């Protein structure tokens, strides 16, 4: 069957890889634009990040909710989240590598400093309007790779309370333009 703007999401949910090719044709520019911006200083990771995003879209299409966001914004949000996460992982690996090597080339130092600064700015932009408790939950959920069970244990909050905090946080985030 012909894949169209009207049926590509339903077809992806059915596992039709033709639908992903449609996404590639019509929406991959979003991935490229967002990833190129946020991984501008790490160009060698851009293609891997795009591949990662495509796979994420494919595996999580059931989680896309057209009543809450447009598909292109959801794709853009995935790209931005992934790109920033790639920076975080790069910084973490660089830190470990530097600890082992004990020798840090000057150019790497400067790149890491700039990246760390940008990463913090992006993170701060996303989190700045959130109350402290919700900010901590988001920080742990997004950047420290913890799941809700772990966060519940570390904060002493129950899962329903966490969900409620996340829900309230999301509403605030939604009000932000140009950031999370």
């Amino acid at each position, binding site marked *: 069957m012909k894949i169209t703007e009207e049926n590509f999401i339903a077809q992806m949910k059915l596992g039709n890889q033709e639908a992903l090719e449609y996404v590639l044709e019509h929406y991959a520019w979003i991935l490229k634009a967002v990833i190129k911006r946020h991984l501008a200083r790490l160009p060698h990771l851009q293609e891997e990040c795009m591949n990662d995003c495509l796979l994420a879209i494919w595996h999580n299409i059931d989680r896309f909710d057209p009543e809450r966001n447009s598909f292109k914004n959801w794709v853009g949000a995935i790209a931005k989240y992934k790109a920033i996460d790639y920076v975080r992982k790069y910084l973490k690996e660089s830190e470990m590598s530097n600890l082992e090597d004990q020798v840090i080339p000057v150019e790497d130092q400067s790149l890491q400093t700039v990246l760390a600064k940008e990463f913090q700015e992006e993170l701060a932009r996303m989190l700045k309007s959130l109350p402290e408790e919700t900010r901590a939950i988001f920080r742990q959920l997004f950047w420290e790779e913890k799941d809700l069970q772990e966060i519940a244990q570390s904060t002493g909050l129950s899962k329903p309370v966490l969900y409620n905090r996340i829900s309230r946080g999301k509403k605030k985030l939604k009000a932000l333009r140009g*950031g999370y």
Partner: protein
Amino acid sequence: MKHTENIYELLNDMSIDLGDYPKEELSELEKQRLKKTFRINMKKSLKDKARDGLINVKEQEKGRDFKKIGAIALAMFLSIGIFAQTSWGKAVYAATESKLAELSYTIGEALGIERNIAPYAQVVNQVVENQGVEMKLTDAIIDREELILSFLTSTTKPVQGLHFDYDIYLNGKKVKNYSASGTSGPIDATHTNFSTVYSIDIDDIDTIGEVKIKVVLKDLAYYFSNATKEKIKGKWEFEFVASGSELTANTRSQALAYDFYIEDTKYSLQEFRYNPVNQKIYGKAQGSVAASYEVDLRGWDDLGNEVVFYLARVSGEDLTFVYSNIDGDLSNEITSLTLAPYAARLPEHSGKASDSWEKVGEEFTIYLAP
């Protein structure tokens, strides 16, 4: 990353101003690279799941040997009978429970067609479980006088082969007295996962509009290497909507006027009809139909490739020769086909194919319109 499902759910509520980002079109090369990597990642993902026991089939083991099986079409006529009502398959089977949910085996793979025919197939991917047996209707194609259905079956134990019959309902009306050809074979070494494709001849199927299709699978039987058989009671029911309009729009036809005789029967070839899925030559047989003959149209295309059309269907006076893709697809690049009719008399007391083929007519050439 752990529990990323939370994140993709949350990303529905994230706002991002795409106007802030300059549009970055992808080059064809970039698209090709992304497609290729995606396919590799998908296979790796399935392999990881297989290793972790989440599914029991390795994707990369599929698709290599099946073409040999797929090309051997077994013609059979269905008997429509009365059957005992047994418990119906669960209409919706939770994907998390399903062994087949993660598996894909497209109709093109099952038919051994190398070109991409996905744009003409209706992806269904419904899984129904009954008696521990999972059936997945993967996709369907509507062509002129034909409905092609592709299934995956996950058996309850290793088997040598399997077979099932089915009832078809089009727009709520049961189709009666149809014929079909089918192919079936295992898709991995476990012999618990099988692909089956049925090509069902339905004279008046609508190839333009949407057709509501219901398929009820029944009379499943396992076959074992020691020639024993085990029947599995139950039905597996699927419902979906499909359209043949896309394939119809990509179908071309060339009128033919060529006759040949086998004994007293006159065979008149009238039309070569071709599209990405099927390539068929239609004709008529007048006189007493020589049903005890196998008939082929054999020859070459203008690129030098050997080409065979076999007589797949005789219905009254109507004949249908179908291109045999055992050596590959009919090339998109060809401009002509040069064929000659060959016939072999079938033994009267045995169904074994004859090897005494004889040329029964002169060569003729079909020139394809550019």
